[in-house]
Each structure stands twice: as C-alpha cells, then as structure tokens.
C-alpha cells in the first residue's frame, strides 16, 4: 500500500532521515520503533506531507504522492495522528470529529445553511465516538478531557477521515499502564473492524503495544532503517538488540 524508496531529510547539518526504504502491505499493522531522535516522527511527517522530502520516492496505492500537499494526501486516504496531542481544544468532542467528517463530505464553501442542521454529519461523528469509546463525552469541551481521552480523540480525528492508511505517532504517549491498555484495545478494535480494514503504520515506544499489535516491525536508528521483519525475528535480531531493545525485551 505504501512504498518508500531512499527517503532522506536533512535539517541544516543534521541528517534526520537517511535513505530509508520501507513498505507497508495492505491490511497489516506495521510498527516503527527506535530510540528517541531516530527520525521516526520526521519520517511520519514526510509520509503525511507536512514535511517536504529532500530525496527519494513515496508511492501510495501505486501512485507517487511526492508533490501532493498534505490535505490532498488525506483525501487520498492517508491520515495521521500526532505524538503531541493536536486537537481543536475549544470545540466539543463531537464537534472535533464532526469537523473531520465534514472535510470529506461535500464542499465546505457553504455560507448559508447552519451546520447544526446537518444531522447526518453528527450521526457519523457520533458513531466514530462510539468506536473510540468517547460517546459519553460528546458534549464536553475537548480541552477538559483527561489525557488518555484526548489521545483517543487524537486517533478518532484521524479515523474520521476514513483513511486507508493510518499513521499513528505514539498513540500511547504519556499514558500510564491502564490507559495504555485501553488504547491498545482501541487500536485492536479498529484493525479488526469487519467493514473496512484499516492499514496502520504505528510508531511506538511501548513494547507491549508493539508486540501485541504488530504484524511486522521496522527498526530505525539514527535516521537509518536497520531491520524489517516479523516480531519474533526482530526480538532475536542481534543488531536490533544492541542498538535499541536491550533490556526492553522483557517477556
């Protein structure tokens, strides 16, 4: 579904991403792990279109998306969530998701008809809230939500765009063990949806989440991709253990 060839990005003298080749197969959950500063978020930025890439090719569903601006990539089915929660804080939970639904359902260059009358929009938004478990908080202003709930909304916003490929950037960031379990369960529900299977590229530090969710794992260190393989193989990969996993491979 997604194919990256020789992707690079430098910031001044710093090479953040160095010749990365990566592929994400349709329907899989592909985890991207690596130490802090490895370049994972930069790579996500390049895939989603918020960062221009210095060199290399990105193909999504067979077509090159190199010159495509971010909002067009979203329309094509490529959506991301953010590591640092980026929601519409002064809007209610329902309105947050409704905004994402609105973006893909007809033109928003509409100046007369009040949005409040568009019940279809809000019904769809509500069903997404049910998927992410926030249906009881639909009227709450999103800035008043607990951290874990905000992270769920974070994912929900990306989900509401009906993506074919979901880029999740550390969805469990800043979460305690209980909240993390809930997030993992949420993601599991998403990928096991009968109607539309979502492909996921998951950046994570939480190894529990990674090994429970991932079909394949890629490892990035210092801007380079050093391994891509099935989880058990990665666990036993010498180079990966040296560079990153170390004691983190608990059980």
């Amino acid at each position, binding site marked *: 579904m997604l194919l990256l060839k020789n992707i690079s990005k430098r910031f001044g003298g710093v090479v953040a991403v160095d010749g990365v080749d990566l592929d994400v197969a349709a329907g899989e959950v592909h985890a991207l792990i690596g130490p802090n500063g490895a370049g994972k978020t930069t790579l996500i930025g390049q895939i989603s279109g918020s960062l221009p890439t210095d060199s290399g090719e990105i193909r999504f569903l067979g077509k090159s998306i190199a010159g495509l601006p971010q*909002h*067009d990539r979203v329309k094509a089915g490529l959506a991301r969530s953010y590591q640092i929660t980026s929601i519409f804080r*002064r809007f209610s939970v329902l309105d947050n998701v409704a*905004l*994402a639904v609105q973006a893909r359902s007809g033109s*928003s260059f509409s*100046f007369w008809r*009040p949005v409040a009358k568009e019940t279809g929009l809000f019904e769809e938004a509500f069903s997404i809230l049910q998927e992410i478990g926030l249906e009881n908080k639909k009227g709450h202003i999103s800035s008043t939500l607990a951290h874990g709930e905000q992270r769920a909304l974070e994912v929900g916003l990306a989900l509401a765009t009906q993506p074919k490929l979901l880029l999740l950037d550390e969805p469990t960031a800043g979460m305690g063990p209980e909240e993390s379990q809930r997030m993992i369960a949420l993601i599991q529900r998403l990928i096991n949806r009968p109607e539309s299977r979502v492909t996921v590229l998951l950046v994570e530090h939480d190894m529990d989440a990674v090994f429970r969710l991932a079909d394949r794992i890629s490892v990035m260190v210092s801007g380079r991709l050093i391994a891509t393989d099935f989880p058990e193989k990665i666990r036993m990969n010498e180079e990966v253990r040296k560079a990153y996993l170390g004691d983190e491979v608990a059980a």
Partner: protein
Amino acid sequence: MKKIAVLIALACLFPLAMHAMGQYFYIGFATRVLIYAMAAASLNLVLGYGGMVSFGHAAFFGAGAYIVGILAVEGVSSVWIAWPAAIAVAALAALIIGALSLRTRGVYFIMITLAFAQMMYYVFVSMKAYGGDDGLSLPTRSTPGFGIDLRNDFVWYYLVLALLAAVLYLLHRLLHARFGRVIGAIQENETRATAIGYPVYGYKLLCFVISGAIAGLAGALIANHTGYVSPSLLHWIQSGTLMIMVILGGVGRFWGGPVGAAVLLTLEEVFSGSPLLGDYALHWQLPVGVILLLVVLFAPQGIAGLVKKKSAFA
C-alpha cells in the same frame, strides 16, 4: 433573539428621537457609527474569527471609498453601478494582497499586509487627477433612483442601518455555516485542520476576500456620508484605528466590531468636544490611547467579553 429586536427597534427610533429633540447632528454621527461598525465587523471576521492579523485593512475601506469618489467625479453616481464597483475593486485588492500575504505567517504577515496597504495609499496619493494628497470632494451622494433622495439625513440613516443589518445577518449565517466552522477550526489549530483534509490556504484567502469586500462597501458608504475621500483613509493609522475598534469591542465576538466602533467614536466625540464633520485625520486624544492601553493589558476580550461569557464556538 429578543435582544436583537430591541436593538433594531432602538436603532430605528433613534433618528426620530433626535428629530424630536432638535439634535440633528447626532443623526449624522449615528450614521457614521453604523458605517464604521460595518468596517470593524469586516475586520473582526478576518482578525477575530480567522486569526489573521491584517494591518492593512484600511486599504480595502479606502479603495471602496475612492471608487465611489472617482466614479462620482466622472459623472457616474448611480448606486447600482458605483457601490458594486466599490465592492468588486475592494474584493479584487483583497484577493491579490491576500494571495501574496497568506504565503507568510506571523509577524511577516502583519508586515506584508501593512506594506501592501501603504503601497495602495501611495498609489492614491499620486493620483493627482483625483486630488492626490488633498483628497477628492464628491459632487453628490450616490443616486439609487426610484425617487429616493439620499441627501436626506433620515433616508440615508435608514439605508445605512438596513445595509449594516443585512451584512451582520449574512455574517451570522456565514459563521454558523460550514465555512464559518472551518475558519474557526483553522484559527484554533491550523496544523490539524490541514491534517484532516482542509486546504487551509484557500479558506483563509476566501475569508480575507469576503472581509475586504465588506470593507469596500463600508468605504463606499463613508465616501457618500462625508462627501469627501482622501488617501488618509488607506493609511496604516486608519488600519490601526479599525483594529482598536475591534479590540475594544471584543476580538472574535460577534458584536465586537459594532460595539467597538460605537464606543471609540463616542469616546472620540466626547473627548474632542467638537462636532465631527468628516474629519479623516482623526484627532486622537490622550485618554483614548490610555483607555486602549488599559483594555489591551487588562481586558483582552474587550468590552463585549466583559458582558458575556465566551461559549464554545460551535
């Protein structure tokens, strides 16, 4: 809803009350307030709701005024030609300036809008054929036909009031429609708005153009009201004045523009002590500056903010 009905009723009765008291000057003053209310409301759209700190808004206001002035001097004084022309030219200017400026952000955006406004100011200053620095007197007020004489202060007042009401109503619909929501979302979190699929640049530009067009209409009205246009209408100090109105009234609050215009012009009237007769080089007094400073420092939500608690946008 009831509050608005009361407001409209008061506004309609005002000139009649003034007539009864023999205080005709205040009818003209009130008309001026209504016109600046429209201009300030247009700025509030782009500044308060769109989050774009445009320091060149006076350019659209002044351009609209000049179009009416130039056409009037050239013999075209029909409302049906001059006013749409003013709106169209202001909208076009906003399209060009917005298209270029919105490629920048932050302080650069402020500076570049300011620079463009100054450019337009100098263009009009250099038009010696139309008064240049000294400005241009209009031979007559615009004529709408149908036997309506806009030189009558009462008729003029009610027409301006009707137009202001129409503009405010349209703005209200716009803000609650899809477009308004997107603009609010963009102001709240532009990055995420892009990330959920909105072409942010296009929305901001359209908001900018709509705001410019309304300012152009207000400009057409001020030209008619004072019978005189001068380049100082486009000066960045005038942009600052409009900004003061918006901040005084409440940035991003629906009534911020009108309230701010009313308050500022009333303050000016009170402090300067003399009747204003189309004085473009507004003679600001010390207290106005002090009040503005205090409001900015201590009541950033403006006067409308003190009155009503801010509810979630949606």
